[in-house]
């Protein structure tokens, strides 16, 4: 993990004031229920239809490689993204790129996979851990050719291979629906932000490179990541995993919403590569200590605990081999996202900047083979949208997040192209298209309803406080679940939107509500503590019952179902 720049810790009074603000949501100035003053003529909205062999959804590191490799494997390929290629999601933030270079490493790939597995307490999927090591060097070489390691802004180097191949790119298009019939993917549907227009794209194969997500938390670049891919896939029957893990990136105590103030060095850094360096870190232990001391998190990985913090007993288990390993500090010129950026003081930061996000590569669609396939025929996922458990339920290998997206994107691209080469062209009945378009536009058609910003803030007030998902216990999670079910049943169906921007917010809010339910149910089910999942009421690692991942899926009655899947095995 990386540590943002420190500032003075807030006083206890400030802490209590913020807690009070969290409890007093009703006093926020945002409109909850109100008449919908629609700014556009909804009846004049038109639909544009596209068709392709392979459709890549998302324009980050995974999406780039998925598109390039699908194209190079002979498939007609198209990219659709709600933002700009290389400038949305977490890609602009990721600057450390892990490579396993046999010429310089002293250990073997087997050693590397074993070390990650020991750190991850078995939570990693060694098939995907190995894949990372085997392919990372080749992906770094391609990125170098495109100029990725010569710049701070990724759009230009990402555009180079896309323009060279003339791959169609639809930017600022929000995909809201995956279309499937009989367990097979047929395409997607969504709408344009810049035009009063819905969009349908028929595709033989779809690769979700939609990233992870959060609850639009403050202080981390997750504002556009709301687990859209995972939630859309869940709604058409895909299995989802890894929802109980917690990312622990921090923000500054002062101006906590100012993402750049805490992480600007990552945005402005020139990307670089790094070799094997396995840890077991990211913030959950600091949240535990802070909870016991009743104070905001002070310090971070890499900082020496002060005397008072050192006295707190218990807390998350760290394998002895990895205790005391601290992420490296940067040298001022690049470096991996594993240490405080140059010049950052490691004190007085607060935990929870990334609330609602799990460990990279640990949450998302369940892989059903070693080539990023989901249980929906023709639907693949890569990067943070795939629950590959490449690194496990805790951060292990420095720089693997960005490299893993490149590696998996390429594998998924080739697999999807291979599938598409033998698949029939999908036919979606007009009636089905009309039905989906009406679902997309529903918030614009409501005469009155809940404002998406208000529902999001209500959700944040339920899910973000430290005592819900950071320090878990059944009583609080059950209480939060009751609130989330209320939002799901009585607010999500009544979200309103006055324009295309609010339409996006409405769909994102709906996705975050379902994601919150997933995180709570998975966290309640895992009655132990392991890696980044810590429960006060089950503080020990339980190897008898919990050498297993948790998969979620929609039952026939629409309810959320959960199942255990033993570690080290792909589902069948």
């Amino acid at each position, binding site marked *: 993990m990386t540590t943002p720049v420190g500032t003075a810790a807030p006083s206890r009074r400030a*802490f209590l004031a*913020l807690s009070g603000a969290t409890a007093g949501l009703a006093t926020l100035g945002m409109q909850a229920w109100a008449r919908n003053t629609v700014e556009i003529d909804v009846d004049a909205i038109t639909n544009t239809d596209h068709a392709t062999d392979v459709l890549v959804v998302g324009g980050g590191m995974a999406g780039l490689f998925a598109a390039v490799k699908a194209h190079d494997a002979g498939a007609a390929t198209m990219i659709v993204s709600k933002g*700009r290629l290389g400038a949305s999601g977490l890609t602009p933030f990721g600057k450390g790129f892990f490579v396993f270079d046999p010429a310089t490493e002293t250990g073997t790939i087997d050693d590397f996979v074993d070390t990650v597995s020991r750190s991850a307490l078995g939570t990693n999927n060694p098939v995907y851990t190995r894949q990372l090591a085997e392919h990372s060097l080749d992906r770094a070489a391609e990125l170098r050719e495109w100029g990725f390691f010569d710049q701070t802004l990724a759009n230009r180097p990402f555009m180079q291979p896309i323009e060279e191949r003339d791959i169609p790119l639809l930017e600022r298009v929000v995909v809201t629906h995956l279309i499937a019939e009989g367990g097979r993917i047929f395409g997607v549907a969504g709408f344009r932000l810049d035009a009063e227009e819905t969009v349908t794209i028929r595709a033989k194969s779809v690769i979700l490179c939609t990233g992870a997500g959060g609850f639009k938390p*403050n202080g981390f670049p*997750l504002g556009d990541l709301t687990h859209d891919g995972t939630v859309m896939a869940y709604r058409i029957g895909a299995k989802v995993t890894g929802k109980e893990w917690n990312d622990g990136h921090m923000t500054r105590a002062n101006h906590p919403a100012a*993402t*750049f103030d805490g992480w600007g060095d990552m945005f402005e850094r020139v990307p670089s590569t790094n070799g094997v360096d396995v840890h077991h870190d990211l913030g959950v232990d600091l*949240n535990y200590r802070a909870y016991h001391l009743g104070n905001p998190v002070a310090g971070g990985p890499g900082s020496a605990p002060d005397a008072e913090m050192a006295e707190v007993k218990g807390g998350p288990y760290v394998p002895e081999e990895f205790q005391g390993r601290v992420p490296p500090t940067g040298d001022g010129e690049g470096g991996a996202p594993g240490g405080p950026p140059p010049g950052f003081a490691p004190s007085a930061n607060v935990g929870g900047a990334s609330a609602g996000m799990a460990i990279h590569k640990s949450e998302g669609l369940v892989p059903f083979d070693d080539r990023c396939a989901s249980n929906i025929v023709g639907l693949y996922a890569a990067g943070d949208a795939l629950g590959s458990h490449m690194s496990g339920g805790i951060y292990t290998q420095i720089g693997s997040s960005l490299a893993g997206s490149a590696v998996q994107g390429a594998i998924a691209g080739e697999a999807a192209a291979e599938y598409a080469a033998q698949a029939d062209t999908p036919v979606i009945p007009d009636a089905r298209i009309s039905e989906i378009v009406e679902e997309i536009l529903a918030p614009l058609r409501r005469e009155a309803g809940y404002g998406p910003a208000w529902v999001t803030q209500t959700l944040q007030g339920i899910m*973000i406080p430290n005592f819900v998902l950071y320090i878990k216990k059944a009583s609080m999670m059950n209480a939060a679940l009751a609130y989330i079910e209320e939002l799901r049943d009585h607010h999500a169906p009544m979200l309103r939107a006055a324009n295309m921007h609010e339409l996006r917010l409405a769909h994102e809010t709906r996705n975050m509500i379902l994601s919150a339910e997933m995180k709570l149910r998975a966290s309640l089910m895992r009655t132990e503590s392991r890696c980044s999942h810590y429960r006060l009421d089950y503080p020990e690692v339980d190897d008898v019952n919990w050498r297993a991942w948790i998969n979620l899926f929609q039952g026939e009655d629409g309810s959320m179902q959960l199942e255990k899947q033993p570690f080290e095995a792909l589902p069948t």
Partner: protein
Amino acid sequence: MTIKSINGCIGCGECVKSCPCDVIRMEDGKAVITYAADCQICHLCRMYSPVDAIEMSPEKSIPVIVPWG
């Protein structure tokens, strides 16, 4: 106020495209701060602006919910 001001805009649209949260829109050929409440203060708009037209503030325009005070 998050993204604070846009001065000297040349209407290239780089900041509009580069904002992950759709905060900025084009109006009459110029970039305008339209949905400030959704700004995540990441500065991508400022960094992509070829004429350094954008000034930022660290303050969010809506109440901020964080896990710890």
